[in-house]
């Protein structure tokens, strides 16, 4: 940790304005970048240190690189717009306000890896975005044809399943099947949609690549802190006087965040949606929002959902809501997630009703750990996060 202590670990809340800036220069950005070599573009991304903004935080440049190096007759780029995490609504805003940035990024990615076909997997609940997005695609494709770039993009509408935000479940869904996550390996970069090399990126990640391709990697890299470079969109909701979407530099402290967005009565913040962690007030100072690296204190990766709770809220009710959600929305194929969620949900109810003693919560905490270690997919591995963090910090609310 010695090295880390010398570095600045967090900074005051800094707003940024890249993603929603309406700069209407996508045609230039596209043309300019299609004239660069794939390697240049990959290196640009790698040196920006952009990490996936869907929540998992895989380095985006590396993802593109792997797919670009695999030989295949067909490759795909998929924009993951299955934004289903409760408390997250940034992708909806991006697609409705700056669709061309995302389309440009998809096209550049396709150029880098050698794909001719891109998809936007749009969450079914966002049906109202579809028509405008389709007209944007039509215009975009016209331009591609004009500049002689052979590429097309289709919208694929989801049919209402949270789990399809998981990339391999999303592929299954696109292939007309139940959205049940696959075993990894193989990873999508080598075997994704239709078992072809596929780059799948979150909407926001792609929007950031636009920033990087437009301004260069340095501009992006200089924002944020070590291991967590650049900016990020945050969906702020709950007990806040100003709910909405904000672009902020990564690495901010939760104290500063609550200072800005809280209602002076903030009791806890759920970071990262239902599958994220609850941070109680006493731990705000030691918590920074970014990707896990050797930062001091707790660093939380996040898909961007920040839900504030004030002292009028029962954390038991919040947890009950999360667990109900997961018990329903787990795909149900693997044991730890399918049965574990039911046990956690029914377990806290049983404790609340006095049918199980308080020590049963400790058994459930151990179970939560097992769920994290053993579930088949990334979502299954994170369903118990909210349980653990709420029970550890608000145990008394679970019991009384």
């Amino acid at each position, binding site marked *: 940790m010695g090295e880390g202590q010398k570095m600045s670990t967090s900074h005051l809340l800094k707003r940024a304005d890249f993603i929603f800036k309406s700069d209407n220069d996508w045609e230039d950005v596209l043309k300019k970048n299609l004239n660069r070599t794939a390697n240049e573009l990959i290196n640009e991304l790698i040196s920006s240190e952009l990490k996936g903004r869907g929540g998992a935080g895989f380095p985006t440049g590396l993802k593109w690189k792997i797919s670009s190096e695999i030989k295949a007759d067909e490759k795909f780029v998929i924009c993951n717009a299955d*934004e*289903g*995490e*409760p*408390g*997250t*609504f940034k992708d*909806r805003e991006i697609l409705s306000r700056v669709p061309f940035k995302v389309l440009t990024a998809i096209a550049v990615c396709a150029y880098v890896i050698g794909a001719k076909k891109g*998809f936007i997997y749009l*969450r*079914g*609940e*966002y*049906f*109202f975005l579809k028509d405008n997005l389709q007209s944007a695609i039509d215009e975009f494709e016209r331009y591609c044809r004009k500049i002689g770039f052979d590429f097309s993009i*289709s919208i*694929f*509408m*989801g*049919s*209402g*399943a*949270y789990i399809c935000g998981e990339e391999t479940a999303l592929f299954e*869904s*696109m*292939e*007309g*099947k*139940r*959205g049940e996550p696959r075993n990894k390996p193989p990873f999508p970069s080598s075997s994704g*949609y*239709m078992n072809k090399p596929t780059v799948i990126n979150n909407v926001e990640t792609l929007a950031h690549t636009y920033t990087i391709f437009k301004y260069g990697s340095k501009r992006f890299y200089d924002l944020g802190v070590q291991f967590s470079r650049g900016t990020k969109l945050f*969906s*702020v*909701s*709950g*007990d806040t006087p100003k*709910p*909405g*979407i904000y672009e902020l530099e990564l690495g901010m402290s939760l104290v500063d965040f609550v200072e800005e967005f809280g209602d002076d009565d903030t009791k806890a913040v*759920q970071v990262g*949606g*239902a599958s994220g962690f609850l941070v109680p007030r006493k731990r705000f100072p030691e918590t920074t929002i970014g990707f896990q690296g050797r930062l001091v204190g707790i660093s939380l990766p996040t898909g961007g*959902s920040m*839900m504030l*709770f004030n002292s009028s*809220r029962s954390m038991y*009710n*919040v947890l009950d*809501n*999360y667990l*109900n*959600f997961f018990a*329903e*929305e787990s*795909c149900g194929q693997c044991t730890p997630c399918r049965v574990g969620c039911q046990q956690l949900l029914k377990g806290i109810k049983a404790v609340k009703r006095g049918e199980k003693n308080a020590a049963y919560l400790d058994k459930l905490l151990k179970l939560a750990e097992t769920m994290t270690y053993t579930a088949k997919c990334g979502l299954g591995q994170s369903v118990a996060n909210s349980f653990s963090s709420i029970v550890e910090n608000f145990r008394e609310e679970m019991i009384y």
Partner: protein
Amino acid sequence: MNAIEESRVNTTVIDEIISRHKGKPGELLTVMEEIQEASEYKFLDDDAMEYLSSSIKVPLSQIYGVATFYSFFNLKPQGKNSIIVCRGTACHTKGSKILLDDLSLLPGCKEAFDSGESSFTTEDKLITVKTVACFGQCALAPVVAVNGVIYSNVTSEQIKKLLQNLKEDNKDENLRLS
């Protein structure tokens, strides 16, 4: 039930939908959605699924597995009007449960939800009440969609008024939350 029996999607419509999507990726889900859309009561009946299965050579059990997996597919006839309440955390925190309780005053509704059903349709097929995991409109919680239009910061009074309007007259302008 007879009206529903008669309203089943006819096979020429299904053929047309299939031919429009033939060979496209994820054909099955898209086709199923459109067949459901084409049905008067917005649901997938067993005949339609059987016909689809034999037309596109996808096992019927697989179609059923898919239909039950995704929340968009209905296996029962739906009401003329749909009211969807978001039960995401933000909406839940901001009182979506109260809105759902208001709707549960519809005869039979409470019983249906208590027995684990995820949707309820009134006997006269006028209203279907459903919940959704999250609309992604958390900044505007609580959120309710009525006939596909999303309304924010919905109050109990609005819901009660809507129910009354639905019962008393069916004029379109009164079927909104405002």
